[in-house]
């Protein structure tokens, strides 16, 4: 009897676990997901889809938050109706911390990757030289209305780079994709904190041309003094944020033609040392390696360094905020990046022509306008119209700060792949070493003494 009851309880448990799933609303009917057209058994829909009138194309980006997913899902739905003969499915990829690019590489090799996907500019060379993405120069040549000059030159240099001939440009015989967007760093300001601290308004300083490293440090220190849980500055732990300090000091990651490491030049080390002082000597920054975004959104960081992509998320905060360009360093520029990423085509796609059509549709002025209206980035097409429109996409009021960042006279460094080496490997050597410096585990001198010996190995091929 006892055991019998026990058996019953256990089977009940099983039923209970079924019931738990009932808490999940019948996903296909209620979820707004656009990719589930039919409620009934999918096996049936597969049978129906068998005659194949439309070519099914999957595409993927690396969204940082739900807001971005919503933007791209919407775009996908609209393009699906626009593009004839193509059925689109948008799938949000993993995040940066979930190894988006590495996952893609495996999936391309395994044959399960989407037809079109976005990759950051740094990884274009790696994907291209591994043969994972399609060279669409022939398709592009046959396309009416396609012009390489429509896009920013920095990204296009790399997207048309032909590793076999080392040539680049419209007639290099290579085209790896089209840039989705460009972006650049700005400082997101918590104006409430800055006012409370009685610190000067960085936007005013920038207008007067006084927005320098010293002024920046002054604002950071004044706001940091507000309390032990208030920070003057916050930046995430990846190559972008620390790179600008190196660039602004006149240094950089590698030499001009990107064939060797330049992390140990006096300029680079000076830039790194200044950033180190923000963390170690002046103690104005959120702990290096801890995500500053939640702290900023909670209203406890005065200046938060991030790209345009952070805007949709920041728009939800309930304090007064705006953006300002990065402060100018000893080199006379802010050392900003021209970030970019590109839509590329899976080398194993079965429908290259349709995939190319999608890549073009995703980079039209209209689509880009829509995406940048939602706040995530800056159009990658060079046109005054697009830039004028971009300024109206507020908040932030001071959108000009982003445009100043990518303006020619700011001399931004284009985020770039290493055609002469492997960017992922380079980053794998550089990131931990820099983290060591910024957390005070190693000195700048020790960093300078050994870093390039190791980093230069990634160029030897």
């Amino acid at each position, binding site marked *: 009897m006892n055991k019998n009851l026990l058996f019953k309880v256990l*089977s009940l448990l099983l039923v209970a676990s079924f019931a738990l799933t009932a808490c999940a609303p019948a996903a296909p009917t209620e979820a707004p997901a656009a990719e589930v057209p039919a409620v009934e058994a999918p096996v*049936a829909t597969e049978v129906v889809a068998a005659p194949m009138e439309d070519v099914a194309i999957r595409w993927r980006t690396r969204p940082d938050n739900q807001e971005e997913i919503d933007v791209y899902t919407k775009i996908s739905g609209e393009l699906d109706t626009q593009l004839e003969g193509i059925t689109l499915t948008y799938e949000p990829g993993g995040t940066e911390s979930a190894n988006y690019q590495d996952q893609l590489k495996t999936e391309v090799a395994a044959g399960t990757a989407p037809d079109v996907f976005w990759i950051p500019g740094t990884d274009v060379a790696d994907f291209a030289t591994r043969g994972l993405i399609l060279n669409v120069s022939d398709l592009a040549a046959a396309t009416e209305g396609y012009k390489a000059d429509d896009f920013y030159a920095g990204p296009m240099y790399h997207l048309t780079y032909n590793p076999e001939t080392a040539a680049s440009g419209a007639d290099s015989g290579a085209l790896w994709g089209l840039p989705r967007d460009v972006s650049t760093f700005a400082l997101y300001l918590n104006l409430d904190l800055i006012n409370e601290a009685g610190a000067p308004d960085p936007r005013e300083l920038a207008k007067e041309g006084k927005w320098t490293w010293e002024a920046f440090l002054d604002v950071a220190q004044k706001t940091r003094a507000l309390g032990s849980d208030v920070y003057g500055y916050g930046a995430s732990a990846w190559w972008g944020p620390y790179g600008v300090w190196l660039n602004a000091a006149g240094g950089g990651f590698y030499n001009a033609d990107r064939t060797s490491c330049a992390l140990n030049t006096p300029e680079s080390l000076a830039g790194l040392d200044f950033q180190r002082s923000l963390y170690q000597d002046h103690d104005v920054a959120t702990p290096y390696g801890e995500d500053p975004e939640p702290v900023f959104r909670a209203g406890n960081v005065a200046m938060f360094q991030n790209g345009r992509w952070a805007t949709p998320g920041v728009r939800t905060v309930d304090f007064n905020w705006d953006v300002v360009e990065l402060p100018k360093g000893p080199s006379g520029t802010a050392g900003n990046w021209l970030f970019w990423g590109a839509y590329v085509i899976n080398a194993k796609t079965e429908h290259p022509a349709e995939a190319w059509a999608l890549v073009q549709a995703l980079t039209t002025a209209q689509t880009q306008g829509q995406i940048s209206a939602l706040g995530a980035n800056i159009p990658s097409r060079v046109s005054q119209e697009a830039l004028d429109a971009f300024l109206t996409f507020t908040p932030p009021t001071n959108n000009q700060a982003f445009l100043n960042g990518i303006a020619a006279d700011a001399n931004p460094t284009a985020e770039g792949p290493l055609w002469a080496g492997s960017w992922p490997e380079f980053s794998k050597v550089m990131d931990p070493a820099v983290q060591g410096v910024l957390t005070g585990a190693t000195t700048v001198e020790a960093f300078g003494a*050994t870093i390039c010996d190791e980093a230069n190995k990634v160029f030897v091929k």
Partner: protein
Amino acid sequence: MVINPRTEFLLKISMVWRGIFSLLTFGVVIALWSGILTSELALWLKILLTVILITASIFSAIGAGQIYRREHSGRMISLVIDYLAFVACSIIALNTGEVFIGIDALGETFASGLPYLGIVAMGYFLGVIDEYYTQKKQLWGESSLKVVSRWVMLGGFVLFIFQVGAIDGILYFLNKLTQPLGILSVAGIALFGFFMWAIGRSESAVAMHSKTNHEQILSGWLFLSPNLLGFLIFFAGPLVLSLYFSFTDSDAFSTPNWVGFANYAKILNIQLVSLAYPEQLAKEVVNISVYDEVGRFTFGNSGILFAAADKYFWIALRNTLSFVFLAVPLSVFPALVLSNILNSKLPGMKFYRALYFMPSIAAIVGISLVWQWLYNATIGYINYFITLGIEFWNNLFNLAIIDPKIQWVSDEKTALLAVVLIAAWQTMGFNTVLFLAGLQNIPGELYEAATVDGAGNWDKFWNITLPMLAPTTFFVVSTTTIQAMQVFEQVFILMNPPEGPNNSTITLVLYLYRNGFQNFKQGYASAIAWVLFIVIFGLTLVQFQQQRKSSIYES
């Protein structure tokens, strides 16, 4: 002995069938190597298929002869071969019908069928109620409620089947089966099934001089077969493959090349060089185009530099071993203490035991996410408690201890410790329960005798509890060690990037994952797996030796 003509006939065609089968399989092997059949198979697969087919062919031929001679072994061979082929055909049929990958579709409709499962549960409840009353109070005897319950359950289940789209699924399955491969496999099922029946019938058994123990042998293998086949395909086979891959440059997608010991050589390629002075740069003493500095040991005015060709492997090994040597004691010693306390006969001990057990059953991924926020340097609870504690002591004793504001997961000094604490927290309760069971197995007379001899509590603990607990301790320590050597999930979730600040949390399994599934170096990853296995094996062996020593003492 009289054999009826039907059986005679069936045995005859079985014999002929064995002959045909033998020739057929041999023919397939030839087709395989001459490239008539798909030639894109991987080499190892080709070899494997050949071995299987040739074996089948030879045994089939022998079987034919044995059936002719009416030897029972002929029947056995025939049954085994036909059974295996039958299973293979069934699997091919199911796979062609996309039953396995069809589980994905079930994921889509399953939730919508749940209300009907609720009906099943309701019917079940009725049954339980009925049983309760019949057994407890003898009210209704064979009641109508039981019948109702059955029908409700059946009805609910049928509705569920409809709702999840089983009908469409079956139609789809049949539709897919009309492919050539599907038809072929169905024909195979029929054919092999028929011959299994033909020679498996009890009349055939008598005719083939089978005895009871032969029947037992057959049913033994039959009962074991699902398990054994799965075990061979998904465990033993892959294990051998893993060894093979470790000698290749396999990348999972193209044909692997044999590279001999190159993978192992790269892992084990290290240099130990003495330094002229502690701060001497690595490039002055080793060829840095091959070696990277892993670490240095300095003493006084000199030191030793440890450099390796694959620096990350050695860092990973160092981290993993540090993890083991921190996490194992941290989860074993408190468990030992707690279990001794819980072993007292005070009230409420079962409650505590249950509480301690909770962390070990929660998903590591979920738990690591929780700890990630607890560890948060700016707003996390752990730093908050530390701050409170320090303030308390400072106020109490008028001290000026400085709040360390530990960056648990972003400082290379504490990152590994953060992972260790989670692991210790998770395994401590499990180990406590194991120790508790060991304690409860120690006969009470031993303690009574010791009390009579005037032994104190400590004496009893040292001289009775610990030695008697030695087997449990061995089990606890070795399982915890094996677990700890494979640490991956906590690190993967907790750290961003998973390597942690300055590679301080890159573990062997993480490095294996990186190599195998992000850089395509699956051959190299396999070699790492074998090195990991050897390390684990070595550690367990050492512990086993220790245990042997203490159990001698015990006896």
